[in-house]
């Protein structure tokens, strides 16, 4: 009577042991697939209101529309900067009169920039929303001014497809250059350059919303593929 039972038990045991000694306990697995698309920083510098013809044969104190603007045409938000290189002349090579025509007093000793930046209010200066982060007067012929898009304490993140608003400045004005200093009939280049850098993962920047412009500009100068 027990023969049948023993046979069944033997079959079960054989079945169990035939799994080749692999122990199978209760188990489970779970997985997740994450996708990261490593993007890039790409910016475009434009001056929507610049008309090259308007910059020909300009006279002292004449303003020409010029509004440097950066557009983020990359796939990641960026911190952006604009560098304006303004030609200058040595203090003893030019006299730039005051707006009322009088000579400056005291007589300047530093080289004098030939152009002034005019903001939206019509005054000398850049528009609000931009911050002068670096001035470089070491070059003999040009002064470089770097403006950060942001405030003195925090960069403004420029989103994908967004443009800086307002422009850095709205017009450029030839300084009130006294005649006879070889500025007449000359061609002066005002070079405007845009720079951009990622907003995340910046060393020394723990909070993107409070990224110090000097810190970010320093990182950009050190690490950029196209260095300033």
């Amino acid at each position, binding site marked *: *009577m*027990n023969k*049948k*039972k*023993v046979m*069944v*038990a033997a079959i*079960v045991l054989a079945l*169990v042991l035939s*799994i080749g*000694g*692999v*122990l*199978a*306990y*209760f*188990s*489970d*697995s*779970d*997985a*997740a*697939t*994450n*996708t*990261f*698309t*490593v*993007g*890039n*920083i790409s910016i475009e510098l434009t001056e929507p209101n610049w008309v090259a013809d308007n910059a020909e044969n300009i006279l002292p104190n004449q303003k020409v529309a010029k509004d440097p603007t950066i557009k983020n045409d990359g*796939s*990641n938000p960026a911190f952006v900067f604009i560098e304006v290189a303004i030609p200058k002349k040595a203090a003893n090579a030019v006299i730039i009169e005051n707006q009322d025509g009088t000579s400056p007093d005291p007589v300047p000793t530093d080289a004098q920039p030939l152009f002034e930046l005019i903001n939206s209010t019509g005054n000398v200066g850049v528009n609000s929303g931009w911050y002068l982060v670096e001035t470089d007067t070491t070059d003999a012929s040009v002064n470089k001014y770097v403006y950060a898009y942001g405030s003195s304490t925090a960069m403004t993140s420029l989103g994908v497809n967004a443009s800086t608003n307002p422009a850095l400045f709205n017009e450029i004005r030839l300084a009130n250059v006294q005649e006879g200093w070889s500025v007449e009939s000359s061609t002066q280049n005002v070079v405007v350059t845009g720079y951009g850098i*990622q907003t*995340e*993962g910046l060393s020394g920047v723990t909070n993107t919303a409070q990224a110090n412009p000097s810190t970010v500009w320093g990182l950009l100068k050190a690490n950029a593929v196209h260095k300033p």
Partner: protein
Amino acid sequence: MIAKKRIKYAALILILLAATVVSGIYAYTSYEIATVENNVVSGAVNIELKEYVKDSNGQQVEVDSVNEHVIPNENIPFTVRVYNKGIKAYLRIKYEYVNATFNISDINMNSTDWVKKGDYYYFKSILDENTYVELFNGYTIPNNITGEYNFIITAEAIQSEHLNVNFESDTPWGNITIEDSIDDNYDISTVNVSSNTIVDYKDDSRKFIEIPANFMENISLLKPGDEISDYITIKNVSNKDIEILMKNVNLSTISNDNYRYLNLKVIDESNNTVYDGTILQNTLTSLGSFKPGESKRLKFVVKFYEGNPNATSEKDYKIGWKFYLNELEEEIDVIDIINPYTGDGIIFWVILFVISLCLLALTIKKFILAKKY
């Protein structure tokens, strides 16, 4: 007239023949003396991988997966945890990178809690029920990379009890197979194990068999390798030799196939194995003979075999234990055909069977000869 008589004789002999045949096969009648209804419930291993990022308000939110535009060196507020919603288990993690154009150095898993063997990080401690372990909090995109890549995280868990782990070995868990749990929604905190044991004795049979009221009762969740044991005492209080048998049945709605990994072993006081096989039986199975006055305490051991797949998890195994008694008679009562006979009584029936066959043969022969005329 003669033909009719012959038919009657043939019929009578056939009936006699049938009676001997029938009685010859069913020489025993077993009386059900006691039943037990109880159940054991099997547990399950179930883990859940949860991923979190931060929304625009800086609040942590759970996501199914992360799909982001990133830049090199960016630190993503990306947190991953593994929750244990099943029984106690060991855990291991695998990180894979697909379509990466470079070699990504691995996530940093602290060496106090984790050890790397082969492709996996093994968590050295047992993950208790209703707890979680955090894999990492914050993820930095590798430097100098381009394009799209996939970051796949796989978590695997295995029951900790009965498993021999050795974190010095190249295969800390040994040669095992990982399966998916049969139910992703299994949550051990909501499982209520109830075990109602019902012991029923027929008539006076409590004199013969004593079964504990909580026979084999087990309130914890069963898993491969577990053993439950209990005792039944059998005493022959009659003046005849008796045999005790059992035939256990499936009382649940799940198929018998699910019970094949529940093994039953019955051992007597001398440590002899009385029975060793599946917990369910198709036929009456002897638990031994007992002389008048003889008493035995049998140990019943139910073991959930290792080697069974997740298919046996989360099951409520209802079992009907059925115990029977056979009287073993030495004297034969010739007149009473219905009563059981064994031993020497069989010879009587064999002789009667042979005589019946001979008579039948003669009758058939005569019948055929008569027909020829």
